[in-house]
């Protein structure tokens, strides 16, 4: 049995999130999922975005990279290509991943790197005190939208499915057990795994509360749903308002970004020799 437990990831820092924040549930589930998979503090890399979610690194003892707002996915892909044996997880937010980093999200999905991205989806920019995020629903009143959000929201799930993600799921921060299982599945999936996590912002969103979600959520698995059809997945992913599904919407096995690189066939780049074997041949092309 692995000696790795949730305590493995303890640091001397305590969370600075608001009491009751959905980030707590996500953090606890992530630690449990990693412990369950036997991934310890030295064994993997978490790349964080910038936002409330991203502050997690301070109380999450594992190799971490807190970079720029929106740019977590490119950093994660570079690290993965450099060492594809390394588990790489992206902890991002709806603004980070779908606003500032929207283009990176689409292109990561199309490449299918073996990376798992967890989107903290609470419809607001919490760290900047509550402006609307790209997933904010029409009519939702925030600091930047006093009359209600004018635009249509981005749907992370339909976007991920159409862009080519090979694992697309949604979880709820208020369901630790269900979320831990989804996280473990997402991390284990070989390919680009998108886990959208619904998360109440207790400070800046008085509408989408824990009870609001609890009264609407249902689990796909209880309905005998199989996650192997893109069109069916799209249909479910577009359900909102009265009934909101959680669980795995779509999953397929496909060549990953790393599988397609001939240089990575035997060893990770980081383990390859630095000297050139065929220098004479290489130089001769120019003679």
């Amino acid at each position, binding site marked *: 049995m692995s000696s790795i437990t949730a305590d493995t990831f303890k640091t001397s820092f305590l969370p600075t999130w608001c009491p009751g924040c959905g980030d707590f549930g996500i953090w606890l589930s992530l630690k449990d999922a990693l412990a369950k998979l036997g991934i310890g503090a030295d064994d993997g890399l978490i790349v964080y975005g*910038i936002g409330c979610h991203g502050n997690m690194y301070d109380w999450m003892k594992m190799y971490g990279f807190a970079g720029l707002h929106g*740019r977590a996915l490119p950093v994660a892909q570079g690290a993965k290509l450099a060492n594809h044996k390394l588990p790489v997880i992206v902890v991002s937010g709806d603004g980070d991943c779908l606003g500032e980093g929207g283009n990176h999200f689409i292109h990561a999905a199309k490449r299918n790197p073996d990376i798992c991205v967890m989107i903290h989806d609470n419809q607001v920019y919490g760290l900047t005190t509550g402006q609307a995020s790209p997933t904010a629903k029409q009519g939702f009143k925030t600091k930047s939208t006093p009359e209600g959000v004018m635009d249509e929201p981005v749907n992370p799930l339909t976007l991920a499915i159409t862009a080519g993600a090979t694992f697309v799921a949604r979880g709820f921060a208020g369901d630790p057990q269900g979320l831990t299982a989804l996280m473990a599945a997402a991390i284990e999936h070989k390919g680009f795994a998108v886990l959208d996590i619904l998360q109440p912002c207790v400070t800046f969103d008085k509408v989408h509360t824990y009870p609001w979600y609890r009264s609407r959520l249902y689990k796909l698995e209880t309905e005998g749903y199989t996650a192997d059809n893109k069109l069916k997945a799209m249909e479910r992913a577009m359900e909102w308002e009265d009934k909101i599904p959680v669980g795995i919407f779509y999953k397929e096995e496909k060549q990953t970004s790393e599988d397609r690189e001939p240089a990575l066939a035997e060893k990770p780049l980081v383990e390859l020799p630095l000297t050139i074997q065929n220098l004479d041949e*290489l130089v001769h092309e120019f003679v």
Partner: protein
Amino acid sequence: MTWKIGGEAGFGIISSGTMLARAYSRAGYHILVTNEYPSLIRGGHNVVTVRIATEPFESLNRDVHILVALNKETINLHKQEVAEGTLVVFDPKDGEPGASDFPKKVVLVPVPFKDLVTQLHGEPVMRNTVALGVTVALIGSDFEMLATVIRDQFRKKGDEIVNQNIAIAKAGYDHIKQTFGTETSMYLSQVQKKEDQLVINASEALGLGAVRAGLKFAAIYPMTPINALIGFLADHAKSLGIVYKQPEDEIAGINMAIGASLAGVRSMVATSGGGFALMVEGLSLAGIVEVPLVIDLGMRVGPATGMPTWTEQGELQFAIHAGHGEFPRIILAPSDAKEAYTLTIDAFNLADRFQVPVFVLTDKYINESQWCVPKSYVTGEVVIDRGKLVKDGLVPLEGTSSFPRYRTDTEDGVSPRSVPGVAGGQYFANSYEHNEEGHVTEDSAKRIAMVTKRMKKLAAIEKEARPPTVFGESDAELTFVSWGSSRGPILEAMKLLAKNGKKARLIHYSWLYPFPSGETMKLLSPATRLIDVEQNATGQLAALIREHTGILIKEKMLKYDGRPFYPEEIVEKVI
């Protein structure tokens, strides 16, 4: 001897220059190939210039000795560049130029390009092959010299294509031998070949330097003038065991390269000014998380999209000041393919040793011009220094749980670096200001300690800053000051000035930042007449010198029309 060929874009103008250069380089001559073309694929005017000489030289001269016009426009655009006795090769079907069309007395050489190609069932695009045969005959060289290059060029396309191209080149060659006699003024004397030479541009030389330095990862969004580097890395990714990734934009590119470097491999990006503008936030990130990173900034004419396929040295000050906040960096600027190779190797070692971004500042002129480089120059031993990268035996600091990646107690400000996956090396690479383990901090004392640590690196780098290179004698009456690609034309200009009895000296910077101010003071202070030579409108090197030494260079020779300097124009301006 300078050969120029012009014609419509899409007619193989650029590749004919490379083939001619390769033929003469293989025979032991010294060559330089430059190109001029607009930012489109078909229909514009393309020009290639090849200088071939028996002795080494540094740049093109202004005079063209053989002008091959594959269309009438070539004559209209380039007739001012001819010298006394220049051979003007043209197809009578494009119209007959008259002697009075040229400012100097030229020799007209009619060649029925279209007819020769048609007779041999070739495509119109093969007129450039006729031109190669014509040229070799005019220079008085052996046809076989060209035939072997054609064979290598078209080998992959099969014997039929090879033979047809050889036949078409031979038709051009024979046409000259039959109609023009056996001797022309352009005959080049034989040379003794010493060793194999590469025909290589600075982008490819930079790529070669990078892979010899152990580059493993590059993320480069396509952009003129660095596309030849992409081609080199992508073509050899499999055989060299490297990953070249085309990112969705330059922002992704630099962040991918930072991720790969963080994970322990040597990585780089390359771009031009516009792409680099997008990378600036990432540059700042590399500065604070202290990952080694090499950036090839291939300058072209700006602002914005500017003149995308033309050359300029407009981004020295941009590279020095790019990025929000303060952090150390190193800026190197090669002047040709050879220096692009060596400085790139240096760049990777410096990046690892000091854990900073290092620029290799190139420009369109050197990125896309081809030089001959002796094979031994790029096959010698290469020293790879990964600095304080540690992969085993790591232990956390006493009383803490993580590896002290950013420890502040080192003399040079460079702290031992672990990589993800290494036992005992866990830390946080943090773009927020951080403590020694990478945890966020806004504490006054800790912020000061961390800034001091990072800036200590600048002082350590300054100790290694290389002084400018001095060409010429210290008693010279005029002293040129330059950086990057201006070196070649200035050195040629100095040869011309010497012929006029004027002694000149050049103080040239390949290492630009941190600026070698002490050496600069020593070298520039006694000079009587200083002339700053740069390809920009503001004198960016002169400003840097003024900033760091107080020395004001009043006389500036600034060029910003997108064309490199010609030695003759430098001479004209100083005499």
